[in-house]
């Protein structure tokens, strides 16, 4: 019955992926074993490779193969600007927007008491260290505009209080192309609070 054990182990392993339940795991396992053994080997090798080589950039904490990620190593990026984001995916989004030329710091999450995640579980200590090394003029806090993201932003503002650095927060309000009629009250209220002179 060793074979059955191997299939069960594969199903169990696949279930660790987000959004994969028992049924999906079974389908995936049988697909790989019955129809696509080559693909299965490729996946296994790719996972192995990634797990062995990908670590955290020692400056910005994002996922990187080198000790220093491409952005941190780049001489073209402005060292005096630091954008703090929650995840590598957020970093990628800001990059795609193409408006930012400074460097990043990735927290790898947000403060969420109800999930039991506190500042110690994030890279906040490393951020504090990076900031106290000096040379940074402005910190742009680009955590999500959720209560958890705002709580994280608050915390970052507090730890920068004693440092000589400007701290800014992403603006919130009506999205590009937004029509007021269809806007939720929360967004509209915040857009009013954060209005600017033109």
């Amino acid at each position: 019955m060793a074979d059955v054990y191997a299939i069960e182990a594969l199903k169990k392993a696949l279930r660790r992926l987000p959004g994969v339940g028992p049924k999906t795991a079974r389908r995936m396992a049988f697909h790989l074993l019955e129809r696509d053994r080559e693909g299965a080997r490729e996946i296994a090798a790719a996972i192995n490779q990634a797990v062995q080589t990908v670590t955290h950039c020692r400056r910005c904490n994002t996922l990187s193969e080198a000790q220093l990620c491409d952005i941190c190593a780049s001489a073209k990026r402005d060292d005096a600007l630091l954008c703090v984001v929650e995840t590598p995916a957020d970093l990628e989004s800001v990059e795609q927007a193409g408006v930012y030329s400074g460097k990043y710091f990735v927290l790898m999450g947000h403060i969420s008491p109800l999930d039991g995640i506190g500042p110690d579980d994030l890279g906040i200590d490393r951020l504090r260290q990076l900031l106290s090394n000096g040379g940074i003029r402005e910190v742009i806090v680009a955590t999500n505009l959720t209560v958890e993201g705002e709580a994280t932003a608050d915390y970052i503002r507090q730890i920068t209080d004693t440092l000589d650095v400007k701290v800014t927060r992403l603006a919130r309000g009506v999205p590009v192309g937004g029509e007021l009629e269809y806007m939720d009250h929360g967004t509209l209220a915040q857009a009013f609070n954060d209005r600017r002179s033109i």
Partner: protein
Amino acid sequence: MRVHQQPGYVLHTRPYRESSLLVEVFTKDHGRLSLLAKGARQLKSRIRGLLCPFQSLLLSWSGRGELPILTAAEFDQAYAELTGEHRLCGFYVNELLMYLLHRHDPHSRLYDCYRQVVDRLAQSCDYEWSLRIFEKNLLRELGYALNLEYDATTNQAIDPKSSYSYVPEFGAVKVTAGGYNGVIVNGSTLITLHREELADEYAKAECKRLMRVMINRQLGRRVLHSRKLFGGLRVAAAGGAER
């Protein structure tokens, strides 16, 4: 089962599958329950901005079983944002409800207290006393009401001028009676808390100590992360040197 426009608050949300959200809510007539907000994390979702903690909402859902589906959500009153310390207090209150309330038990009186606390937190006014009253009512709803009116040994009314030792799950005993190892509080403080009258600073501090002991008993070994964060934030504000 179909529920239409039920007043409620979001306590917490969690991503679910590709684009949905698991929403933990506290409602007036249905207590605490989980709802599935399908597609709420998609860019075009019109309710994502509403499903935030501390907003008074009207929620509609349908379905039986453990995970009914959220069909509509709208604001019940103007958008109210909690900031800074007030937000942390909001997390604290939500954490208490998540840990201590059973699902599907209605607690409409507690709901009113919750609403009051959140309103006060949003207005950034003195919220401490509302927190104490909320904690007191939470304990009562859980079946661990404090006996703040009568001396637990003599059954006489609490004397505002005497000092009492409050023993959890027993009650207040005059300190002069001796032999009881509870939280020391003034009689007047117990009466103020019972009547939910305005308290002076001294009574507030005493109540805070008393309620902390009482709440901790309910929590058992569970740690409140919002409380920890509160402490950590004050240290961070002081320069982080004490860490």
